[in-house]
């Protein structure tokens, strides 16, 4: 969230500053100090930046900004530092004048590492803390908040006096609290205020500071007492939020399992085909997304944000038609021999994996996240990442749609009729072979759609399907074969159970325990969570 916000703000800032800079009557940046950036090793950069910052000249802001963005270069021949944005004209860093007649081969990049970037950001923040632009001030406060260094205390206090925005006021107060709690010279009153402030801020950073504070031996008992109570309060609220967070993680893992399994709930659950190629259908969906994004990148870069929406129907079609072909070509000869479908579909899965490997190569393919699926939302103490949120919503949507198709459409009715009593359905005029083929295609198509969503969080490689196939079978069987609700509840239960075990047992043991749980559960309910009942089952 922060980083996303920062990036946005930073780029806005760049434009604003660049504009204000050009029209400004501020004195130019000190040329000598700017050009010094071209000299020396990485280790000398922090000192160079400090020297620039010490001038308190706003003209250095675009220079530092360019350094952060990796757009600062120097001329190989004379060491003049220039800003070379990815698009647009090059600028002389010291004077801000556009340069012409230079090409990139005559430039050498000025390297920056994390530390340099961090220092540059702090330097910019100090200069923009009192900027008239709200966004700039926000970014500045965030940067100083993160660093929480005593030397910025006076600057922050200064800024606090003049700040008008109430939200930013609070943030400033929090930043000041963070710093003054570490400040040995702070007055008792300031400490009290800081403790209260941090208590309301909450979170790990505040907690750690308060804990460190209580361990100090140069503080008065009242403050120590207050800090201890604040620590307790924060710990308690964090524990509560922690449970909520775990539930969220569990649901989110559950939604991934649900997506992976839902197509299988049709092909395996409803039709009884032990479809080992199910994972490969998911893989096809993911590769479809990759191809769609490739085409968009090369031909229609403008619609990248919609790439997933475009990929969805295509993935459904691609996986669906492969499924259709599979049913027509192979599976229809195997009805009544469910275990042999395992063999044939395993063969199909090998062929599909190798086909994808031959066409696309064995390495991972890059599938990008659209902007709206990046970042995170904070909800109290909960951190909800956007892509997980979308995937959860999407999984539920797919589930609901499938339910509607099965329950409310003619095709769904025919499908259920065929799976329940093939002969009866046939004698009633239902074209059972086509219903079979389309049911299988539907299940495969759904798996393809799942692949689009899973491409956002997983490797897109020929092995993609193999990573999900076992979990998918576990979910369907745990939920009860032939019951969509079972798949939903099964996926969510396993997801949440896994995530609650993980903090105690570690990721590996949690997974083992979940598997053992499934084994034991099946002993208790040999037909899964939502077993079909009645005499029909025995037949």
């Amino acid at each position, binding site marked *: 969230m922060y980083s996303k916000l920062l990036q946005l703000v930073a780029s806005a800032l760049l434009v604003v500053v660049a504009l204000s800079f050009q029209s400004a009557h501020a004195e130019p940046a000190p040329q000598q100090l700017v050009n010094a950036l071209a000299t020396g090793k990485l280790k000398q950069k922090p000192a160079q930046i400090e020297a620039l910052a010490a001038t308190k000249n706003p003209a250095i802001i675009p220079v530092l900004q360019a350094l952060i963005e*990796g757009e600062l270069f120097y001329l190989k021949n004379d060491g003049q530092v220039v800003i070379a944005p990815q698009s647009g004209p090059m600028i002389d860093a010291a004077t801000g004048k556009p340069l012409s007649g230079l090409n990139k081969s005559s430039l050498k990049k000025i390297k920056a590492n994390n530390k340099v970037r961090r220092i540059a950001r702090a330097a910019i923040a100090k200069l923009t803390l009192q900027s008239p632009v709200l966004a700039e001030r926000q970014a500045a406060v965030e940067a100083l908040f993160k660093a929480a260094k005593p030397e910025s205390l006076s600057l922050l206090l200064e800024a606090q006096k003049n700040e008008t925005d109430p939200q930013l006021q609070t943030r400033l107060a929090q930043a000041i609290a963070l710093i003054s709690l570490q400040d040995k010279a702070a007055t008792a009153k300031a400490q009290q205020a800081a403790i209260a402030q941090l208590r309301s801020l909450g979170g790990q950073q505040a907690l750690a500071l308060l804990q460190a504070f209580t361990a100090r031996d140069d503080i008065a008992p009242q403050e120590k007492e207050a800090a201890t109570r604040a620590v307790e309060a924060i710990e308690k609220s964090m524990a509560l939020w922690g449970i909520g967070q775990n539930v969220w993680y569990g649901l989110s893992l559950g939604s991934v399992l649900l997506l992976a399994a839902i197509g299988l709930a049709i092909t395996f659950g409803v039709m009884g085909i032990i479809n080992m190629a199910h994972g490969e259908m998911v893989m096809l969906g993911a590769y479809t997304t990759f191809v769609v994004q490739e085409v968009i990148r090369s031909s229609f870069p403008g619609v990248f944000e919609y790439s997933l929406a475009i990929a969805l129907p295509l993935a459904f079609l691609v996986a669906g038609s492969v499924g259709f072909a599979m049913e027509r070509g192979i599976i229809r000869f195997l009805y009544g021999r469910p275990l042999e479908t395992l063999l044939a579909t395993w063969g199909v899965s090998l062929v599909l994996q190798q086909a994808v490997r031959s066409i696309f190569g064995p390495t991972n393919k890059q599938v990008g996240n659209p902007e709206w699926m990046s970042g995170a939302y904070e909800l109290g103490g909960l951190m909800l990442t956007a892509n997980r949120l979308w995937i959860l919503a999407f999984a539920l949507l797919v589930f609901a749609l499938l339910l509607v198709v099965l329950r409310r459409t003619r095709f769904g009715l025919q499908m259920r009729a065929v799976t329940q009593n093939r002969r009866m359905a046939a004698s009633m005029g239902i074209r059972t072979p086509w219903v079979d083929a389309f049911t299988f295609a539907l299940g495969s198509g759904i798996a393809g759609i799942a692949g689009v969503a899973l491409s956002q969080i997983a490797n*897109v490689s020929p092995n993609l399907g*193999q990573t999900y196939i076992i979990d998918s079978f576990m979910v369907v069987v745990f939920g009860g074969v032939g019951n969509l609700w079972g798949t939903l509840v099964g996926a969510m239960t396993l997801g949440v159970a896994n995530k609650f075990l993980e903090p105690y047992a570690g*990721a590996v043991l949690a997974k083992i325990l979940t598997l053992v749980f499934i084994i034991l559960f099946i002993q208790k309910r040999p037909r899964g969570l939502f077993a079909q009942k009645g005499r029909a089952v025995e037949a």
Partner: protein
Amino acid sequence: MLNPKKFLKAASLSAMLATTLVSGSASAEETIKVGILHSLSGTMAISETTLKDAMLMLIEDQNAKGGLLGKKLEPVVVDPASDWPLFAEKAKELLAVHKVDAVFGNWTSVSRKSVLPVFEELNGILFYPVQYEGEESQRNVFYTGAAPNQQAIPAVDYLLENEEVERWVLAGTDYVYPRTTNKILAAYLKAKGVADEDIMINYTPFGHSDWQTIVSDIKAFGSAGKKTAVVSTINGDANVPFYKELGNQGISAEDIPVVAFSVGEEELAGLDTEPLVGHLAAWNYFQSVETEANYEFIAKWKDFTKDINRVTNDPMEAHYIGFNMWVKAVEKAGSTEVDSVIDALVGVSVPNLSGGYSTMMPNHHITKPVLIGEIQADGQFEIVDQTDGLVAGDAWSDYLPDSAKLISDWRAPLSCGNYNVETKSCGGDS
């Protein structure tokens, strides 16, 4: 159902088939055979296929230069399918049936461990191109990838010095390489004065895909007011979801940098690196190395694969070095006879791609520079640090009590991979 006569016929037929199918193809022209033992299917294909292609390119190149000792080199490619016992079987096939003169291959320690006895028994030569945990030195194996002291320790040094990191998360996949590396690192960090509670060690299974909990733990661990870094020995497949989760939970490299030992250009090709800018990796080679030799190598590679987007990576350079070393050693020995080549290899020096020379040490490890790179938005690394000189691979770590007393020297008179300096004896078998 079957009568015995028919059965016996079938049995002898299948036995015949078995013999013919493993006896391979005899070629008319006299060639020098080079075995390539990399998985082309299964879970490891993702990394190893590239190395197979790299080897084919190197061999083609050498043949264009006129071959070796006046003969053409002939690559023999087999697919061990990421199946460890199959590695041993295929190694045996390469050595016993195809009679190759050297084998370039394997990725992961377990595959190497699986073939070790085969190379020992049939006296072959194996070049292993991947970074590994060390703790091994075998007469028939030449380790061209990094030992822990050629990757992990310099990376930690960089973070200590440049980022002033005080808290450490050692996150890895649960297998030998991360376990050993983390053990070495923990010992090293403690020696540097890092407290126990400032080190968090976490292991995950292979192919771990749900990183929500662990990433949020890392985040919590890192927001305690001390500068925190993650040292990642997370393996292959699990990296993509790990980095995606890092990006989504908003952990930027400026807050908590992650330094990885198993993430190279090839792995990044499967990722949107925009949110990962600034995370680090330590290798002995990056595609972004600015040397003429490297530019030439990259151009050749893109040309060979007919794909301008193909990237190069560290294990490819390791094969490049290893192959050239072998060629030089064969020329030096004047034959491909295994024992003389093994002897000739020690001390051979060939140019590496980062502008220096790599030398084969008596412990069958090589000297290399160590580079630290930061991930860029274009999927490449920007080199932010480099060791001053070359670092020689250390087979036995000085930070593990039991291995500190071992040394390896395959030159006469010692000729031992695990000589115990305390007991003055060559431990174990050998």
